[in-house]
């Protein structure tokens, strides 16, 4: 298995990757009248709807794990917006940027990377806003916030590897692209975003949740904002996540190397 050529392309083209990520952001947001505001409005409305439906209706005013539901929800769902973008625009990366593949010589493996970087930039802004909201509620940053970059890095690597894997397969087959779009909802509800995984009574159901890498990331963000737990205090969960990440990377490298030469012909 060869991953060297992928790494080499990324090092050689690091400047262009940055520029293309910027161009991708400009493209997504600058066309509309409200422009950049959409990057914030969309997640804000999602959070509001979930808070309204679940916070008011189901959880009432009791809060969750001793925290106001809205803050608990925000700390977890913030990573989901990036993951969702990677499941959607990340999976479509090769198709969206097919002009780079079929019309010019281009390091194709970097396409999901700059799409991921663009999405990640939005994520950073959202995290900053969440921190500000926490402060407005009277919760000042703690030392545990320092491990945010750790979870961000884990999430970024996994999602970018997924982007490479998924976008090659989506280029090969529209069915695959549609399948992933359909499964996005399942990924959302089968992770610990909307309720604490520890509250699930059925052991095998809890296991499914815990094996979902999204759960690990969501819980990781909550470790920083809510639970005040260090990542090394949960070594088993970390080991499972790292194993899943490694499998994802190997799959991505395998599929990419196998299909690289066919990509320009099928797009």
């Amino acid at each position, binding site marked *: 298995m060869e991953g060297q050529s992928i790494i080499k392309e990324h090092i050689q083209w690091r*400047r*262009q990757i940055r*520029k*293309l990520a910027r*161009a991708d952001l*400009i*493209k997504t947001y600058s*066309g509309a009248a409200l422009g950049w505001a959409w990057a914030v409005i969309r997640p804000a409305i999602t959070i509001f709807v979930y808070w309204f439906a679940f916070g008011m209706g189901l959880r009432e005013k009791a809060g969750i794990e001793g925290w106001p539901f809205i803050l608990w929800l925000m700390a977890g769902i913030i990573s989901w917006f990036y993951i969702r973008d990677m499941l959607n625009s990340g999976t479509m990366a090769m198709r969206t940027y097919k*002009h*780079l*593949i*079929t*019309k*010019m*010589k*281009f390091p194709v493996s970097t396409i999901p990377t700059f799409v991921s970087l663009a999405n990640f930039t939005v994520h950073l802004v959202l995290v900053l806003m969440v921190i500000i909201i926490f402060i407005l509620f009277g919760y000042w940053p703690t030392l545990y916030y320092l491990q945010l970059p750790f979870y961000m890095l884990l999430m970024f690597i996994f999602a970018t590897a997924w982007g490479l894997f998924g976008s090659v*397969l989506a280029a*090969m*087959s*529209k*069915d*695959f692209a549609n399948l992933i779009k359909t499964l996005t909802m399942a990924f959302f509800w089968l992770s610990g975003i909307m309720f604490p995984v520890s509250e699930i009574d059925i052991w095998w159901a809890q296991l499914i949740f815990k094996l979902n890498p999204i759960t690990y990331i969501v819980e990781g963000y909550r470790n920083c904002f809510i639970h005040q737990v260090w990542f090394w205090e949960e070594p088993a969960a970390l080991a499972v996540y790292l194993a899943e990440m490694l499998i994802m990377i190997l799959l991505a490298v395998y*599929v990419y190397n*196998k*299909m*690289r*030469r*066919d990509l*320009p*012909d*099928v797009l």
Partner: protein
Amino acid sequence: MDDIVIEFKDVTKVYKLYKNDKARLKAVFNKNIKHTKKMAVNKVSFSVKRGEAVAIFGKNGAGKSTLLKMITGVTFSTEGEIRVEGRVSALLELTAGFDPELTGRENIYLKGQIMGISDEEIAELEKGIIDFAAIEEYIDQPVRTYSSGMKARLGFAINSNIRPEILIIDEALSVGDVNFKKKCVEKVNEIIEREGVTLLFVTHSTSVAKEFCSRGMVMRQGNLIFDGDIDSAIERYRQMLDEDREIAKSKKIFTEKKQ
């Protein structure tokens, strides 16, 4: 001046055709999935020296575009060896790889960055490109709002102005009005005359080809059937067209008789 910049050795390109999307997805993980093969380029060998101007003739589907795509490095050969040296600038299709959502100006920079040109150098070339394309205030509008003629003009302007070492033109000169066409011909001549630029030119128009090119290649159904000086190549190309017309005619008579 005798060095070879493009070399093809027994290059074959086969397209794999699957029954549907599903079969193609399965084939990623299972190599026993059935597919038919379409031979686009068949054991082609040739070499081009620095500064040469070569015209490639052939009917639609003869494999010309596939050949050019392999030279640009967009598509890969199934078998054989390809060696290309120097900055390749290709006018493969009218849109020339524009991002439709970005403005013309942003596309100039993007294209330059992808070609590995520094921002300062692009800034220097920018005015020349915009003037040449003659799209004026549209330069700051998204490319998706451009007419096909404007896209082609901008594409030609960018590719011919970024100081290519190998310039590939695929039918791009067949668009635009007479004035722009004339401007393009002048520009191409200027580029060729500057030392060291190699030109590959695909066209159906033998008269335009004769203006630039000293050498001609003729392709037919994936095979390179002629490679030599431009006049003989044009003659061979015309002869081939006549032959094909004869065959088509006799086929038609044959089927009519049958009825």
